[in-house]
C-alpha cells in the first residue's frame, strides 16, 4: 500500500511537471496586414506570448491598461511577454490603435477564436 501511495505521489509530481511544461508554452501572434493574428488567444497562465511583425511598416504592442508596452517593432522584430493570469488582456498597436487584440488567460490553456496559429515556436 505504501509503495502504491509513493508511486501515486511520483505520478502526481510527474503530472504536475508535465503540466507545468505544457503551461510554459509559447504562443505566437503574427502582425500581418495591420492585423493581429490570431486576434484572440486563449492561453494558460505562464504562457509566453511572442508578437512577430510581418509587415513592412513598424508596429508596437501596448496594453489598454498600460501594464506593458513594447518598443517599436520593425519588420520581423519580436516582442515577448509571459502572462500570469488568470484574466483578460486587451491590447492594441500604439501606432495604429485601430489594430486590437485580446489574450484570455485561464486554466484551460487552449487557444481560442478558431484561427489560432501554431504554438510553441
Amino acid at each position, binding site marked *: 500500500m505504501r509503495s502504491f501511495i509513493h508511486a501515486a505521489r511520483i505520478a502526481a509530481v510527474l503530472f504536475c511537471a508535465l503540466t507545468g511544461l505544457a503551461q510554459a508554452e509559447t504562443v505566437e501572434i503574427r502582425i500581418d496586414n495591420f492585423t493581429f493574428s490570431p486576434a484572440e488567444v486563449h492561453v494558460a497562465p505562464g504562457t509566453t506570448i511572442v508578437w512577430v511583425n510581418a509587415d513592412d511598416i513598424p508596429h508596437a504592442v501596448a496594453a489598454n491598461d498600460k501594464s506593458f508596452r513594447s518598443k517599436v517593432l*520593425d519588420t520581423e522584430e519580436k516582442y515577448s511577454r509571459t502572462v500570469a493570469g488568470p484574466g483578460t488582456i486587451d491590447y492594441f498597436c500604439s501606432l495604429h490603435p485601430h489594430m486590437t487584440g485580446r489574450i484570455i488567460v485561464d486554466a484551460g490553456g487552449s487557444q481560442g477564436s478558431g484561427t489560432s496559429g501554431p504554438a510553441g515556436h
Partner: protein
Amino acid sequence: MAHQPSLPADEIDTGRRHALKCMAWAGTGLVWSVAGGVPLTAGLIGGGAQAAPAATKTTAPVNPGLTFAQISDSHVGFDKPANPDALATLREAVAGVRGLPTRPAFVIHTGDISHLSRDEQFDAADQALKDLGVPVFFVPGEHDVLDDGMGAAYLARYGKGPNGKALGAGWYSFDHGGVHFVALVNVVNLKGGGLGNLGEDQLAWLADDLRALSASTPVVVFAHIPLWTVYPEWGWGTDDGARALSLLARFGSVTVLNGHIHQILQKVEGNVAFHTARSTAFPQPSPGSAPSPGPMKLPADKLRGALGVTTVTYRQKAGPLAVVDATLG
C-alpha cells in the same frame, strides 16, 4: 525633381469663392498663396510666377500675399521595397520646392519626419530640409514619437515651435501674412480601438487660441492624421477632430492640411477645405482598395509618379472652386 504635368488628370468644381488648383511632380508639397486676408493667387500654374512675398496685413489688398509649401511623411529611414531610399526622395522634394517659381515663405512638415524616431533619422531629415533655405514648421506623426520617452526626442528637437510657445505634445499657432496658422498634434495618447486623438488639453487651448480672432481671419490648420474621418477601418481619422472643426465653424475660410495617408484626398465642407498631401517616401492604397494600408510597391519607374508634388493656388474670384490634380506617371 520638378516636372510640370502635361494635363490635368481630374477636375472638380464646387461652389466657393476661391479657386484652388493642384498639380504634381516628383517629391511632394503643397504650395499655398494667400493675400489680402483671402487666399489668392500663387501664380504657380499657367506661368504667373511671382516673387517671394513678405508678410502682409489682413486688410492690405496686396498681391502677392503669402506662399508656403507643405511636405509630409518623409519617413527618413524607411528602406523597404516600396522605396529603398526615402532620404533620396525627400531630397528630390526639397529640390522641387527650391525650384518653385514662387519661393515659399516657409514650409510646413505634417509629420512622420522619421520612420522610427531615431536620432540619425531626424538628423538626416533635418540636414535635407535645411537645403530648403526657409523656416520649417513641424507637427509630429506617429512615427516621430516612438522613442522610449514617447515623443521626448521629437519635443527636444522641435518642441519649442516657431515662437517658443509650443505646448503639450508640441502644438502651437502663429500668424503670417494675415493668416492664422494652427499646428495640432493628434498622434499621442492614442487609445486602443480608437483613431487620432487631440485630447481635452489641446482642444481647450485651441478654443482659447481662436477666441480673439475675427471670423474673417483665414485659418490654416495642420496636423498629421486627417482631422476628418477618411476611413476609420484603417484608422484614418481623428476621434475628436469634429470638436476642433466645430471651433472653426465660424470662420469664413478654413483650410485643413493633413498627411498620414500618403495620397491626395480632398473635400470642401461649408467654408472648410480639407486636403491631404502625398508622402515623399512611398504611396499607400486608396481607402479599402487593399487588404491593409501598408506601403504600395510600384515599379521603380512609377514610384515618383505616385509621390508627386501638389501645388495649390487660391484665387479670389466669384466663380466656383476649381480643384485640379495631376501626376506625371
